[in-house]
Structures are given as C-alpha cells and as structure tokens.
C-alpha cells in the first residue's frame, strides 16, 4: 500500500502537462498566429486514456493518497471522454465567440486534471484539493465571456456559493481528522468500522458536513440553487462540461467516501440521501416543466439526473453500484451532446437557446435536429437509448433493494420529464420556421463529435452488456 511509484498519477499528469503546454504555447504565440491548441489538449487526453487503460487491474497506489483502482479508472475514462468531446465542440465555439483560446483550453484541461484527481483520491484532503482545482477552473470558465454581464454574475454566484460549500466540506474533513487521526480513506475506514456501534455524535456531524459538500457539487436539492444561474450564464459548451464532468467526478468521490469509509453508517446516511434524492428528482423535474430557455431547462434536467444517481447510491446493492457507473457514462455522453447542439446553434451575437429558437429546426438543419432528438429521447429514458438502460438499472436496483418509494418517485418524474424533452422535439419538427434564422456553419470536428456521441448513445442502448460488465468489474474492486 505504500508504493511510492507515480504510476497512479500518470493519467492526471498527462492532462496537466498538456495544460501547461497549452499555456506555454499561448505565451509564446506570435500575434495573429493560429495554434492548434485544442489538438495539443487532445494529445494529452489520449495519452492519459492510454495510461489509464494500461493501469487497468493493477490497483496502483501513489504516495498513499492517489489510488488508480478500476473504479477510479472507469470514471477517469468517462472524464477523459467528456473532456475530449468538450474540446471537439469548443473548436467551433472558441473561434466563433472570440474566446481566449489559450486560457480556455488550459482551463478545461486543468479542470479535467482536477476531476481525475478527485475520482482517484484516496485521502480526504486530496479530494478537497482536487475539488478546488476543478472548481476554480470551472468558475473562471463560467465567466470566460468577459463582456457578458450574465456570465460574470453567474460566475460570481457560483464562486461565492462554491466557497461557502467548500467551507462545510473542509469542516467535515477537520472533524473526521479529529476523530480518526488521519485523512487517509483507508485509515478513516478502519476507524469507522471500529466505531460503528459507538454512536458518537461527532461522527455524524462529520458525515453530515461532508454530505453537504458533495451535495453542493452534484447540485442536490436544496443545495442546487446556483445551478440554473451558472448553467444559463456559462457558454453552452462549458455548461455541458460542468454538468457532466464536475458531476461525474464529484459522484465518484461521493460514492468512494460514502460507500466504503462510511459504509458502516449507511443506516445513518441512507435516509438522508433518500430524502435528497426524492427532493432532487421532484424539484428538478417539476420546475423543469416550466422553463422556456433550453439551457435552463437542461439545467433543471441535470439536477433531476443527479437525483437518479442518488437513487443508485441509496440502493447500493451490487446492481445499484454498477448502475451508478453506467448511468454516469450514459448521462455524460447524452448531456454533453445536447449542450453541444445548443452551442453549435448559437452565434456570436445571439445564443439562440430559447425554446422558440428551435422552431422548425428540422427544416433548416435536419441533421442537428435529428441528433438533438436522440439526445432528448435518451435524457427522457425512452428505449432503445443509453438513458433508458441507465434508468432501468437504477430503478430495478432500487426496487430490489426494497426502496419502492424511490422507484415510484423516480419512474414518475422520468415520465413527467419526457414531457419537456419532447416539447423541444415538437418545436423542431412540428412547428413552422418563423423567420430565416440562419444557423452558423458547423465544423467537421464538432460534427464528428456529435455523431460519435449519438452513435454511443444508441450503442449503449442496444448493446449495453459489455459496458455493464465493465462497470460491474470496476466497482467490485473497492466496495
């Protein structure tokens, strides 16, 4: 366990080096020179992915605090995919909106490095550092359009509230350290297992504070209030990145801490997470119905999806644990692609992200409309898409673990949610195009990313078994 090799941090390192390379290249860039900064980032991501695959089944540990077990590596691969797709979508957007390319790509890569660190952290303090690395990068990305007052306000709100929640999280770590004498997850776990009968209230306080920190990052109700503002204010690509990457990383750490370290106390936290899950699913869905801005609607939708993931966490049986990983992947690809379409339809002058901007899209951009339809059907959980399999798994895990109430709420909210996803489909196909809103051209790279995501969504819906096996294997390594 005390191997001090650096194997486990190699994926993170690749991404970080790529980020540094992007920064360096930007610094020495001649005025007016166009550099393939995104491509540089892709090289780093591919390197990281290769190293992650090579680390598979090796359970490498570095410095005792970063552990590249299969669970962490699965999430790492999901995160790398998220970053890759984000960069591919960004290629169009950065140029179109005149965003500072060097800063933009470097921040995306730093955030990715932070996410990977969070997914593989084996120490509460490392989780915290990772959380801060990714958060600060994401705060800046939210406000990267410096001339847009909405974006600035969103970034500021996100930052203030994020700092607030970090304080709770840190406080939770302090309590844990005070009790267990260590922040290393394995040692804390040993302590907790020994204390499971003690009923020490301080343990519960520590647990509660950590729960708050995680709940904020995955925007669980009532810690979700920043989400719609931040998601609406950020550029659509960044929103896609935040709503999938940050959520996946935070969920990985959440699951690792609560399903292993605090497993002996599951009787204490499960009822609370039950409540959070129910409130999150209900509020995300019901409020989503009333939205007319697509980004805001998808923001509430992603809140609701966080609720479904929480259901998997509550129903932490063997099926439920694998379901979380599958759902993370399915949701990440789908949501990212949906935000990708939104991003590609915007122009420098107008975001075009109101529902009415999608009227008759089928007539002007049939391919984008068709791809968006698949995303929305998957988000709504209609067969045969990735979203359907993910939901099916989550809910059958809940039912077999005896959480009938959660399953009933979950199925109900997902049924209701289809209503607002399909409203967009109706807009695109069954409404006349009001005026000739000429959507901008889409670059081949972005289109390739979209088509690949859609292919993945359908493939995951039709042939989920290999990925499910993969997920089941990887979760088996730690819990």
């Amino acid at each position, binding site marked *: 366990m005390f191997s001090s090799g650096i194997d486990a941090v190699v994926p993170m390192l690749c991404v970080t080096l790529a980020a540094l390379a992007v920064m360096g290249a930007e610094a020495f860039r001649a005025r007016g020179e166009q550099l393939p900064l995104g491509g540089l980032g892709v090289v780093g991501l591919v390197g990281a992915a290769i190293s992650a695959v090579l680390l598979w089944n090796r359970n490498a540990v570095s410095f005792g605090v970063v552990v590249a077990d299969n669970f962490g590596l699965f999430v790492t691969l999901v995160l790398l995919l998220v970053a890759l797709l984000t960069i591919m979508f960004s290629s169009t957007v950065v140029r179109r909106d005149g965003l500072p390319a060097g800063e933009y790509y470097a921040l995306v890569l730093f955030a990715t490095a932070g996410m990977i660190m969070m997914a593989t952290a084996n120490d509460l303090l490392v989780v915290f550092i990772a959380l801060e690395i990714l958060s600060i990068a994401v705060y800046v990305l939210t406000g990267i359009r410096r001339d847009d007052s909405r974006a600035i306000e969103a970034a500021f709100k996100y930052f*203030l509230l994020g700092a607030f*929640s970090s304080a709770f999280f840190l406080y939770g770590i302090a309590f844990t350290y005070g009790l267990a004498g260590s922040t290393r997850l394995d040692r804390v776990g040993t302590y907790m297992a020994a204390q499971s009968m003690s009923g020490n*209230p301080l343990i519960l306080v520590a647990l509660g504070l950590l729960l708050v920190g995680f709940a904020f990052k995955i925007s669980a109700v009532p810690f979700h209030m920043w989400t719609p503002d931040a998601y609406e204010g950020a550029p659509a690509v960044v929103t896609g990145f935040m709503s999938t990457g940050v959520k996946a990383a935070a969920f990985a750490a959440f699951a690792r801490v609560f399903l292993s370290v605090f497993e002996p106390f599951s009787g204490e936290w499960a009822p609370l997470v039950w409540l959070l899950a129910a409130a999150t699913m209900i509020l995300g869905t019901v409020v989503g119905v009333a939205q007319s801005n697509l980004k805001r609607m998808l923001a509430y939708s992603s809140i609701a999806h966080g609720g479904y993931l929480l259901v998997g966490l509550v129903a932490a049986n063997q099926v439920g644990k694998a379901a979380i990983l599958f759902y993370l992947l399915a949701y990440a690809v789908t949501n990212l692609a949906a935000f990708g379409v939104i991003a590609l339809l915007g122009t420098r002058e107008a975001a075009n992200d109101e529902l009415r901007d999608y009227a008759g899209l089928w007539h002007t951009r049939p391919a984008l409309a068709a791809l968006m339809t698949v995303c929305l059907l998957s988000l709504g959980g209609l067969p045969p898409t990735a979203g359907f399999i993910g939901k099916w798994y989550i809910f059958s895990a809940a*039912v077999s673990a005896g959480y009938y109430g959660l399953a*009933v709420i979950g199925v109900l909210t997902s049924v209701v949610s289809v*209503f607002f996803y399909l409203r967009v489909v109706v807009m695109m196909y069954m409404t006349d195009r009001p005026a000739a809103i000429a959507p901008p051209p889409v670059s081949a790279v972005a289109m390739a990313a979209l088509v690949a995501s859609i292919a993945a969504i359908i493939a995951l819906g039709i042939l989920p078994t290999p990925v499910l096996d993969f997920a089941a294997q990887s979760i088996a390594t730690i819990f």
Partner: protein
Amino acid sequence: MLALIPLFPLLGFLVNAALGRRLRKTASGGLACAVMVASFVVAMLSVGELAGMAEGARVIEQTVYTWIASGDVVLDLTFRLDPLAAVMILVVTGIGALIHIYSTAYMHEETDGEYARYFSYLNLFAAFMLVLVLGGNFLVLFVGWEGVGLCSYLLIGFWFTKTSAADAGKKAFVVNRIGDYAFVLGMLFLLVRFGTLDFQRLASVVAALPPEAGAFGAISVATLLLFIGATGKSAQIPLYTWLPDAMEGPTPVSALIHAATMVTAGVYMIGRNAVLFSHAPGTLLIVAIVGAVTALMAGTIGLVQNDIKRVLAYSTVSQLGLMFLAMGMGAFGAGIFHLYTHAFFKALLFLGSGAVIHALHGEQDIRRMGGLKRLLPVTYWTFLIGSLAIAGVPFLSGFFSKDEILYETFAAGHWILWTVAAVTSLLTATYMFRLVCLTFHGERREASSPAPSHAAASHLHDAPPAMALALVVLAVGSALAGYAGVPHALGGTNPLGAWLAPSFRAPGANPVAELAEGSGAAGLELTLMAVSSAIAIGGIALAATVWLRRRQLADAVAARVPGLYRLLLNKYYVDELYDAAVVTPIRVGSAEGLWRGVDVAVIDGAVNGTASLVAAGSGALRRIQTGSVRAYAGSMFIGVVVILGYYLWR
C-alpha cells in the same frame, strides 16, 4: 428470420428519414409500401412454418443477442412467434401494407418532403408495432410500446399547422405517459417478484402458484398496474379521452394506429400474459367491468357525434371495451378473435370515411353530407359491408366474434355485464347506420355549407385506384374473416380458437379438457345468437327509421331530453372534469407553486427572514450582495441545519 419482419419497415424508415426530402413521391411512397409487403411476405412464410409444427409445440424463437445481463437477471432481445403473435403480425403487416398503399393516394397533395416524412413515421410505427407483438419478454415489448406511442404522437400532430392537431398530439402523449408510468412499475414489480420478465418463464413460474382468489396479492397488484398501462394505450376508462382527439391525424393513420393495431396493444398484452392475469381474478373482474362500462359509455357518445371520424373513434373505444370484457371473462380467445375481425372492419370504415373526406375536400361533418351513395359507389358499398360487419349482422365477421364475447360473458354467469354488452351492440348497430344513412343516403346537404356545391359536385370523384384497392380487399376481409372462428354451435370447429389456445397456457401445460359442448350449451349459444342478431337488425332498422324516414324524430327526441342530449354531445364533460381536477392544478402547481413558489419565493422568503434578522443586528451588512445570492446561500444553510439537526436532535 423473425428479426427481418420488423427490420424491413425499420430500413424503410431510415432511408426515407435520411433521403426522403430528395426523393420523389413515387420513390418514397413506393419504398414504404415495398418494405411493408416484404415484411408481410416474411410474416406469411414464418406463420406457414409455425403452422407446420405439432400443435402445442408451435413456437419459433430467435434470440438476437443478450441485451442486458447483470447478476441473475438476464434480458435477451428475443423475438418469439407463437400462435397469438402470428395472428398479430399478419394483421399488422397485412392491413399495414394495405393502409400504406392507400396512403400513397390519400397523402398525394403533400409536398415531397412532407410525404416522405409521413411515410417514414408510418414505417417506423410498423417496425415498433412488430417489435411489440414479437417481443419475447416485457422489456422488448416495452420498447415497441413506447415506440408506437411516440409515432402515434408524431402522426396525430402531423398537420401541426392546425392548433387542434398539435394539441391532440400533446394530449395523446400526456395521457399515455400516465399509463406508461403504471406499466413500468408493473414490470419492475414483476421483475423483483419473479426474477424474470420473459413471458414464457413468467407463465411457468406463475402457473405453479395458486390463483389469488379472494386476496389481492402480488400478482393482482402487478397485473392491475399493467392493466392501467393498457387503459392508456387502448383508450379505456379512465384514460380514453385522447383517442377521439387523435382523429386530428391523417385518416389512414386513424385506420392503422387508432383502430387496427396500436390501440389493441393493451388487449394483446393481456392475452400474451393470460396465465398471469388468470391468477389474478380480482384484476380480471376489474378488467371486465372497465371494459363493459367503457363500451357502453363510448357507444352512447357515438350516437350523437356529428364528425364522421369521431363517431368511428368512439366506436373504436367501445369495441375495445368489448375486447377487454372478453379478456376479463377469461375468454382470451374471444377477445383476440374480436381484435382480429375488428382490425378489418374498423380499418375499412376509417379508410372509407377517408375516401368520403377526400372526395369532399376535407368535409367531416355528417350533417353536411348525404346522398353520396351514387356519387361514390365503391366507397359506399365497401363502407356498407364494414358497417354490417361491425353491427353484427349474421354471417359477417363481426357477428361471429361479438357473439363469442356475449356468449362467454353469459356463460360465465355475469348477466349484468352481458346486458351491458348487448345494449352496446344495439348502440353499435344504431350509430353505425345513423352514419351510413346521414352520409350516403337521403339528399345531398352540402348546399348548406359555405363552399359552392356546384363546383364541388363536379369535382366529386370516387376513391382513386390505390384507395379503392385497399377498400375492396378490406371489405372482403370484413365479410369473411369471421369464418376463421365459426363456433361449434353452428357446426364449425372454431379453428382460430384452437389455434390460439396454446398461447394462453403455460408452456408445456396440458390443455384443460374442454367441456364437451352438450346440446344444452349449444342451444344456449344458438338462443343468444338469435337474440344478438335481432339486436343488430333492430338497431339498423331503428337507425333507418329515425335518420332516413323521419328525420324530425331524432330532433324531437333530442329536444325532449335536452339535458341528456347535451351530456352525450359533450361527452359526459369528462374532458372538462379532467381539466379542472388534474390539468389546471398541475400546471399552476408547477409554474406557480414549485418554481416561483418554492424555488424562488418560499426559500427566498424564509431566507430573507433569517437573513434580515442577521442583517438587523449588523446593519452594515445589508445590501452588500445581490438578494439572490444571499437567498441561495440561505437555502444551503437551511439544508445544512436540517441535516445536522437531524443527527443532533433526533
């Protein structure tokens, strides 16, 4: 080979969706029809193969691959052809192909792009419907179940420039989601309780259990949830309200989806799980009562509607009610028999009404029709055959199937339900012939319409060849389809019943020794047949008297009981009731309550309360931040307090 059956229409969909806008109508329409015919041919070959097998062993199964596998639960993508599925695929591909052909003429005025869009939806629908009936387990069935719902929704709203069409699509969707909700819960419940969703394995497992007589146990709950799903898809009380509105879609769509195939999916689902439902007598009784009440209620509404398609829509709801009644009586064969004959005559009636509407350039109000018999002979004669068949006139298809339902109901001792069904039959004959009389007989009343009748009359043409072909073939089917199930009492052998019977037993179970039909039973059956024949002919005579000879009589009756008339005309005010009781509260609740209320105001308010307490103490802090950030932080703070409070003070 089974997988080919849904694959053909799926290919048609893909090609038309991808390239349709660049294809000419002959190409896109021709392709759509060709894939349906190909699918029909493969279906015929498969059923032929099935028929060649030994009775009781008639199952062709194709597992394409393992779809979902985790732990003990393995769900395969399995297609399974058994006698029940065989009847269904022949109906879906056969009648489906005819309706595709009919559509090539009916939709001809659309632009190329719209034409291709129409056919791509129609093909996609057929593909999903075939997945639904061929699916070997609940999850595959559910893929089809959701898919046909989606296509139905898209096709109802096909003419989206009409607000009513767009609204109708939305309504169909929302109502169906309620049903689907229960359906998913039912599936999950079965999966957890029995560890499988495969129809055959479920049947085997359940067959070993005693029926839940007198107790409402797990099977009863699961089947009831599934039945709620069926009431959504098959338009039964309380979820029937979407179907009449669905008539906003193109008429061939009404014929295919909202009469012949999709709406019967609920009946099929019960037949598919006959063993399961048989073990839940409580649910079966509910099914029967809901079916009977729906049949009667929809029949009465159909009597006073003036839109030709709406009359047919209520008729469909009513006939579906009779099918559910049969299922509820445990007479699964009778229910499927009626499903099968109904597919012919109701598709025919819809296509006939389409031909009328086509000829009259969109007129759907029967008060402005009349006298079309001579002008549209093909349409008239085929429509007449369809009407006679649905009315239950002896020796046409509807007679045999409806009679079997009535007989089974009576034989099971449910004479109240039998009476309801008999009255429904009378209503059926009456409203159908009201339709025939007002549309085709009497004088032309088109003059009263704003369109100049002279010009219209000169343009009036009977169904073009593609439409006529479909009408004639379906008319022959409507007349003869019933001979697949001639009862023993009439000297027949009910081959359809015998063919279907193994599908309603657990696999490997021995057939229950059929009670030899004694002369007494045959006598009873013959008596009942005579009664229902008299009802059918009486209903027709009544309609002819009232709406042909003495028009004023109908108005007089309506004037005599204005309250009842208005109640029926307004469909028992169910839509209004649902609006007031369900729709409005939800809309207000979502927009005003949870969003503005909870998410913005209440949290805001509560927080402003605490925040202003703090602020009052330290006045300088006021208005440093925007209100909303303070509110958001407050929301989090409340969350923290609740979570910690839960631990500290519980």
